[in-house]
């Protein structure tokens, strides 16, 4: 039985009277691809921020990569990688400058950054672009590179917040193959997406509505439970019941 790399119980985050995240309880196993779905405003971003050590929960308990989410936010940050659609790399730095910057932030030595960068660029067949400004790269390339940069320090978990929005269908699939590969090498992937076909690529999926997790299982089990032919239908039937907007 694989160990849990994320384990949270009754996690809450209130903003004044507003319960952004309302008693969520779940585990994520090491090496798992975990899909974190929910409508806009369901509380996903607030939940991810707590799991990444960026904000402390109002109440509840749990650990991420072995560190307490109530107390050790700073330690959590060292053991995770993060990328989002909105922010991933600096447009006005070159590919290599971005790698050096993020490697430095994650505490890698110059030697380590150099070695890892070459490895990554070879793997992406992207060595010729080492001195290209990131801003001039196509979005799909940027996102693949960003995933590698978020994994530069070999984190145990990588959080991906809508990593493939707007990306073409071919590159979107290449991106998911990188996720599969990372997962098969033991990295845990925690991912949000608005593409419902991508939910099917996950080992397990949770669906958040109004701050709570309303469903959590493998895509196949969820479809069986909801008598649906695709995750899209499961998502719709749950999200339609949402009381609150964003």
């Amino acid at each position, binding site marked *: 039985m694989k160990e849990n790399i994320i384990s949270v119980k009754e996690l809450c985050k209130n903003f004044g009277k507003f319960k952004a995240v309302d008693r969520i309880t779940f585990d994520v196993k090491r090496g798992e691809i975990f899909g974190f779905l929910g409508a*806009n405003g369901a509380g996903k971003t607030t939940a991810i921020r707590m799991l990444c050590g960026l904000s402390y929960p109002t109440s509840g308990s749990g650990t991420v990569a072995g560190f307490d989410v109530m107390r050790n936010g700073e330690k959590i940050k060292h053991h995770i990688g993060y990328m989002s659609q909105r922010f991933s790399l600096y447009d006005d730095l070159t590919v290599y400058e971005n790698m050096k910057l993020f490697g430095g932030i994650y505490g890698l030595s110059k030697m380590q950054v150099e070695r890892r960068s070459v490895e990554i660029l070879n793997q992406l067949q992207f060595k010729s672009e080492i001195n290209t400004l990131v801003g001039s790269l196509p979005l799909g390339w940027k996102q693949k590179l960003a995933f590698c940069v978020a994994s530069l320090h070999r984190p145990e978990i990588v959080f991906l917040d809508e990593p493939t929005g707007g990306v073409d269908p071919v590159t979107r699939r290449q991106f998911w193959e990188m996720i599969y*590969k990372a997962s098969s090498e033991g990295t845990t992937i925690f991912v949000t997406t608005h593409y419902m076909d991508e939910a099917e690529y996950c080992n397990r999926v949770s669906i958040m509505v109004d701050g709570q997790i309303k469903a959590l299982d493998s895509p196949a089990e969820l479809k069986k439970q909801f008598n649906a032919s695709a995750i899209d239908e499961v998502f719709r039937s749950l999200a339609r019941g949402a009381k609150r907007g964003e």
Partner: protein
Amino acid sequence: MRQDAIEINGISKNYGALKALDGITFNVGRGEVFGLIGPDGAGKSTLFRILVTLIDSDGGSAKVDGMDILNDYHSIRNKIGYMPGKFSLYPDLTVEENINFFAALFHVTLEQNYDLIAPIYKQIEPFKTRRAGKLSGGMKQKLALCCSLIHKPDVLFLDEPTTGVDAVSRSEFWDMLLELQKKGLSILVSTPYMDEASKCNRIALINGGKILDINTPDGIVNNFKEPLYAVSGTNMYGILTATRQEKEVVDCYPFGAAHHIVASENFNPEFLKQTLEERGFKNIELNKTKAGIEDVFIKLMHTQ
């Protein structure tokens, strides 16, 4: 006979060495919902900005509502509604103030064209004193749609109205568009979500500044003639890499719950199933399947 709502003839646009648009030609009929489907960077927004007379093209010509985009740009602007990809209302004005502002620009009032806007406006009316910047994504989108409809345009241009919006709000937005279509509007709408293509009367697939194909959604997928199979089982990543090594497999890629296999004419599904099982993969299911818009897009991208 009235002219088509939009006629585009060989429109091109370059940014330095980059060909953002490379000879785009298509028409949008009266009362048609026409979808421009393609990823980020395909040239969708550039085409929109040329058609709504915000920027000039480098070549080709186009007519909107029967008027030339160069010579009649002033008249065109009174006849079209445009919702840009980026939220472009005034964040520090309230919902009501934004609507009144856009109405004043076109010398109309909200009341004058209330029938057209009412079904959408009623959903945001409870928040009419809230500043636009404080609205949720879905509500901003509805306000922007109201503002683009305020002067009762003939042709509506919607540039990625559903990007970043969740699946439920997206389907609600499409319901609104189909209501507007019933009222006689012609609509050009772009989206990176290929599953939305089926809502359109016709679609154009666009990538790298070029149109890959134009047809009805059914017509597009019916043109996919290669044998297509879906394979699934335990350890999907392993199945993907193993399937690709097979000789009669032209392409294999993840496609939701299964991987799709584009096969050659000599492909034998029973043989592949057996091969995968011999290599230790369990619960293998392998069936013939029907192509979707994404299958077509992937194929056309490879041959582009």
